[in-house]
C-alpha cells in the first residue's frame, strides 16, 4: 500500500499532458505521457484490491459508510478504466471534449472523491460531533445518489461515443439522442433527491442530537486509535499519549493480545489559540475578490491586513499553554463521572 502510494506520488507529476493530447505536441511527447498515465493505473489497482482484500475473512456490516465505500469502489473503477481508454492518444483524439470525457471525469470525481468523502464524513461524524447521523436517512440518500449517478452518467459514455460534444446548449432532434438525454435528466433529478435527503438528514440529526449521543466514543468497534478517545475528543485529544509498538494497538488490546495503555497522566503542551488564522482567511477572501474585479483599493487594504496579521501572529514569546497533569486528571475524571451518571 505504501509503495503503491509512493509510486503514484512520483508518477502523478509526469502525467499532466494527458489533458492536452490534442493540443499539438509531437507523437513522441503524447506517447510518453500516455505510457505514464497507463502506468499509474497499476499502483492504483494495487490500492483498490488492497482495500477490497481488507474485507477478507471479515464480517462485513453494511452500515452506510460501507455502502458509500462499495459505491466508491465500483464507480471509481469504472471511471478509472475509461481513463485508461482515454489515455491512448488515438482514442483521445476521437472522444476528447465529448460527453465520454464528461462521464469519465465525473466518475472519478463524484464516484471517487465525493463518495469517498461521504464515506469518511459518515464514518467519522460521531467522532467529531459526539452524536450520530440518521442512519436511515443516510441510506435513502445513498441509494438516490448511487442510482442517480449511474442513470445520469452511464448514458453519457454512449452519447460520447456516438459523437455528442460537450458544452453545447442543445442537440438536434435528428441525432436521435433525445431518449438517452431524458434518462440522464431523470438520473440528475434522483441525485437532487439524494442531496435534499442529505441536507434534511443533517438538519434532523442535529435537532435530534440529544437522543443520538455517542457515549462510548467507539460506535463502529474500530481498530484505530481515534476510537479510544471520547466523542467529541477533548481539546488535548489523548489524555495519555498512547504507546504504539505494533499494528493496530487498540485492536490488539480489545482482543486481549496486548495490555491496555498503562501510561500515567503527564503535562500537556498545547499551542496557544489564535484568531489570526481566521482573520487571514477572511482577508484572503477579500483580496482574491478584489484581485478578480480589479479593485485596487480593496486589494491593497486586504493585502496589507494579511501581512499585519502574519506579523502579529509571529510576534511574542508566549506561545504555549501548559495543562498540568492534575488538570488533565480532573478533566478526565469529571468526564468519566458524567458518562456513568
Amino acid at each position: 500500500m505504501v509503495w503503491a502510494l509512493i509510486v503514484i506520488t512520483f508518477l502523478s507529476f509526469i502525467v499532466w499532458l494527458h489533458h492536452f493530447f490534442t493540443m499539438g505536441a509531437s507523437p513522441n511527447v503524447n506517447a510518453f505521457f500516455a505510457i505514464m498515465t497507463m502506468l499509474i493505473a497499476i499502483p492504483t489497482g494495487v490500492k483498490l484490491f488492497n482495500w477490497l482484500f481488507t474485507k477478507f475473512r471479515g464480517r462485513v456490516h453494511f452500515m452506510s459508510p460501507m455502502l458509500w465505500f462499495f459505491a466508491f469502489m465500483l464507480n471509481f473503477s469504472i471511471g478509472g478504466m475509461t481513463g485508461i481508454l482515454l489515455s491512448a492518444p488515438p482514442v483521445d483524439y476521437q472522444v476528447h471534449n465529448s460527453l465520454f470525457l464528461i462521464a469519465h471525469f465525473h466518475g472519478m470525481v463524484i464516484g471517487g472523491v465525493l463518495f469517498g468523502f461521504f464515506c469518511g464524513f459518515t464514518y467519522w461524524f460521531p467522532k467529531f460531533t459526539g452524536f450520530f447521523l440518521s442512519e436511515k436517512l443516510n441510506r435513502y440518500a445513498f441509494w438516490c445518489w448511487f442510482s442517480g449517478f449511474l442513470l445520469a452518467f452511464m448514458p453519457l459514455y454512449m452519447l460520447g461515443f456516438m459523437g455528442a460534444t460537450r458544452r453545447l446548449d442543445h442537440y438536434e432532434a435528428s441525432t436521435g439522442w433525445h431518449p438517452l438525454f431524458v434518462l440522464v435528466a431523470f438520473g440528475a433529478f434522483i441525485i437532487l433527491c439524494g442531496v435534499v435527503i442529505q441536507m434534511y438528514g443533517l438538519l434532523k440529526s442535529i435537532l435530534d442530537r440529544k437522543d443520538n449521543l455517542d457515549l462510548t466514543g467507539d460506535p463502529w468497534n474500530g481498530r484505530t486509535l481515534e476510537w479510544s478517545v471520547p466523542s467529541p475528543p477533548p481539546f488535548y485529544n489523548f489524555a495519555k499519549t498512547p504507546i504504539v509498538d505494533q499494528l493496530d494497538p487498540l485492536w490488539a488490546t480489545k482482543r486481549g493480545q496486548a495490555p491496555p495503555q498503562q501510561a500515567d497522566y503527564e503535562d500537556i503542551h498545547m499551542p496557544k489559540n489564535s484568531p489570526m488564522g481566521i482573520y487571514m482567511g477572511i482577508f484572503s477572501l477579500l483580496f482574491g475578490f478584489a484581485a478578480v474585479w480589479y479593485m485596487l483599493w480593496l486589494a491593497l487594504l486586504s493585502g496589507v491586513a494579511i501581512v499585519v496579521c502574519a506579523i502579529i501572529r509571529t510576534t511574542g514569546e508566549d506561545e504555549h499553554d501548559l495543562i498540568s497533569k492534575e488538570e488533565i486528571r480532573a478533566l478526565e475524571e469529571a468526564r468519566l463521572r458524567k458518562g456513568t451518571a
Partner: protein
Amino acid sequence: MSHEEISLREMQKEWHGSLSGYLCGFIASIVLTAISFGIVATRALSGPSLKYTVASLALTQAILQLIFFSTPRLGS
C-alpha cells in the same frame, strides 16, 4: 516529567557557524562567480564546453554555499 524547552544558551551552542566558515564560503563564492563571469565575458571557451564549465562552476558554488552558509544542521 514535563515538556523540556531548550534554553537560549543551548540553542546558541547548537549553532555551527563560524567567522572562518563564512569568510571561506564568501571567498570561494567570489572566486567561482568571477571565473564564471570572466569566461563568458571573454568567451574563453565556446559551445558545449562553455555551457558545461559554467554549469559546473555554478553547481560547485551552490554546494560550497550550502556547506559554509547553512548552519542549522538537521538532527540538531
